[in-house]
């Protein structure tokens, strides 16, 4: 208790309010999400009993061995007019769980009632989905808490900037979907400008450093998009396979270009702000530093960040294909086919992002120099 008392004493009034508000939000949201069954229209059940009635070993056409289980599940209905009744469900799953999954006592599931041909009393249903909202909420809280504990103020700002960007992207897509005839690329272009201004102002505050970074980010990302676009046109998109892009309700080409545009933005922003803060720091330490010296140091810094930055994008994009690569290869698909269909778009994204990162280094440098020289002239 003494430690707790000391800790509370150390906190400022503002922090205390923030912590209390957070605690209430946390408790409130968790209570809600664990008791929100009545808000769903789809029936939800909680598994109370499971038993495996059948086990079969399978070997598919490509000699992959797996074991199939058939599970009988007894569950209690949590909402709707059948609330409280028990229901019997069937589930088939394999050890690999590549598509199917095993359910355990305590899991909550969305189901669909099967029409009962005879009027016997026991209910039967089909499993549709797992109720994941409570887990997502808990993970989100873990994320928020860790970012706040480690990052304090900056952690809070990155959470706010993430939230704003998510809302903005969602709104931009709504506009795109509900107004026919607007081009996705235009909408993304406008969003990119907004994303850049909001994120950089939030992370760095209002000062010349930020303005230089905003200009550099916009120039860098539009130029890299232009380069990628020209290359794609000139090579007539030879080698790009849109078939496996997935989730397509719109022309794949446009969706891909828009995704590529937004995807490299974070990295380009990172490079731009790194370049401009280091140039400004050097200038603030020594107001009379020669432009050539600034240029040289700036290029050195650029060289240092280039490799790791391109790596970040590369892994963020290419790793997403791991599960489908494994599925394809395990099903005996030819190597070159598997790679071109699963990796061509990801590699293009990563390379385009890399181009954006590298050209932003000199652009960021010269933008910062421009603002520094203007400041110098005013001295």
């Amino acid at each position: 208790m003494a430690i707790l008392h000391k800790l509370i004493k150390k906190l400022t009034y503002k922090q205390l309010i923030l912590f209390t508000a957070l605690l209430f939000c946390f408790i409130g949201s968790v209570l809600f999400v664990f008791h929100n069954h009545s808000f769903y229209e789809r029936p939800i059940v909680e598994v109370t009993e499971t038993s495996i009635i059948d086990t079969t070993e399978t070997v598919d056409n490509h000699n992959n061995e797996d074991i199939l289980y058939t599970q009988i599940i007894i569950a209690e209905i949590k909402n709707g007019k059948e609330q409280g009744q028990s229901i019997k469900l069937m589930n088939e799953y394999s050890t690999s769980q590549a598509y199917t999954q095993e359910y355990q006592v305590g899991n909550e599931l969305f189901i669909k009632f099967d029409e009962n041909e005879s009027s016997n009393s026991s209910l039967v249903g089909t499993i549709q989905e797992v109720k994941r909202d409570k887990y997502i909420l808990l993970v989100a809280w873990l994320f928020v808490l860790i970012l706040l504990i480690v990052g304090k103020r900056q952690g809070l700002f990155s959470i706010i900037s993430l939230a704003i960007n998510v809302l903005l992207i969602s709104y931009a897509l709504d506009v795109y979907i509900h107004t026919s005839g607007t081009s996705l690329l235009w909408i993304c272009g406008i969003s990119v400008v907004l994303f850049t201004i909001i994120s950089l102002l939030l992370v760095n505050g209002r000062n010349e450093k930020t303005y230089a970074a905003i200009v550099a980010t916009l120039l860098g990302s539009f130029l890299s998009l232009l380069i990628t676009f020209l290359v794609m046109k000139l090579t007539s998109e030879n080698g790009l396979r849109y078939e496996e892009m997935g989730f397509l309700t719109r022309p794949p080409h446009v969706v891909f270009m828009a995704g590529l545009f937004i995807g490299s933005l974070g990295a380009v922003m990172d490079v731009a702000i790194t370049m401009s803060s280091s140039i400004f720091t050097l200038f603030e330490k020594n107001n009379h530093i020669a432009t050539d010296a600034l240029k040289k140091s700036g290029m050195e810094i650029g060289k240092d960040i280039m490799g790791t930055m391109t790596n970040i994008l590369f892994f963020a994009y290419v790793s997403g294909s791991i599960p489908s690569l494994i599925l394809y290869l395990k099903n005996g698909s030819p190597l070159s086919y598997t790679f071109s269909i699963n990796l061509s778009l990801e590699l293009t994204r990563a390379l385009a992002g890399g181009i954006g990162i590298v050209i932003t280094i000199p652009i960021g440098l010269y933008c910062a120099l421009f603002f520094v020289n203007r400041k110098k002239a005013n001295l």
Partner: protein
Amino acid sequence: MNTIVALALILLILMVLVGGRKGAKSFIAIFLNFAVLIVTIFIMLDPSADPIILTIFASTLISCITLFYINDVNSTTKTAFLSTVITIVILLALITFLTETTMIQGFSEEEIGELYIFSFYIGIDFVKIVAAMIIMSTIGAITDMAIAIASPMREIHYHHPTISRKELYRSGVSIGRDILGTNTNTLFFAFFGGYLALLIWFKDLSYTFGEIINSKVFSEEMITIMCAGIGIAIIIPITSGITAYALVRSGDN
């Protein structure tokens, strides 16, 4: 000419123009990392190989390439390397646990459409494959964070050799905080770009909020983003601690 080859050539030329020798090295490093990734996937095809252990090996190798090949082997890169490996192991444990409880492994209903010709009974544990995928997508950012904290800490120690371990740790954490925002942004936007098609899909097919939040594919992407953020955050105290410990101890001798 193939679009990918053309883009790769442009990237190579730009990297050499801007970065000289170091630029060329960075380009080769991407190539080597790609090779490591592909070889790892091939070993994963063997059902008796544990994907988690393979991922730890692969991540170690990838951070070796990124840290020791592009930069040099010195006390900064060594501490950055150690911090990266520790963070990956912690994060991997968290991700495996989360994947299991949230049941996000494997392919979703939405993805299954195009894949119906395939057999899904392939005998490889997809809980572990998804964990491997999530950790691999953040490995670049984690390594970047480690080196970005460790190298200015060494500079600080060099300029103030009498600094105490605690003070050095604090300055490391404060450097980390300053880059936390931009680094999380880098990953968030990269993931948004990749998920754009999915977001449009949800909106076009008018999924309700409840359907989106409970769906496997959305949960998987949310957990990827959150875990990436958690990874970037926890490496800050880890790197600061290890670097402070290594530098101040060696300074005492």
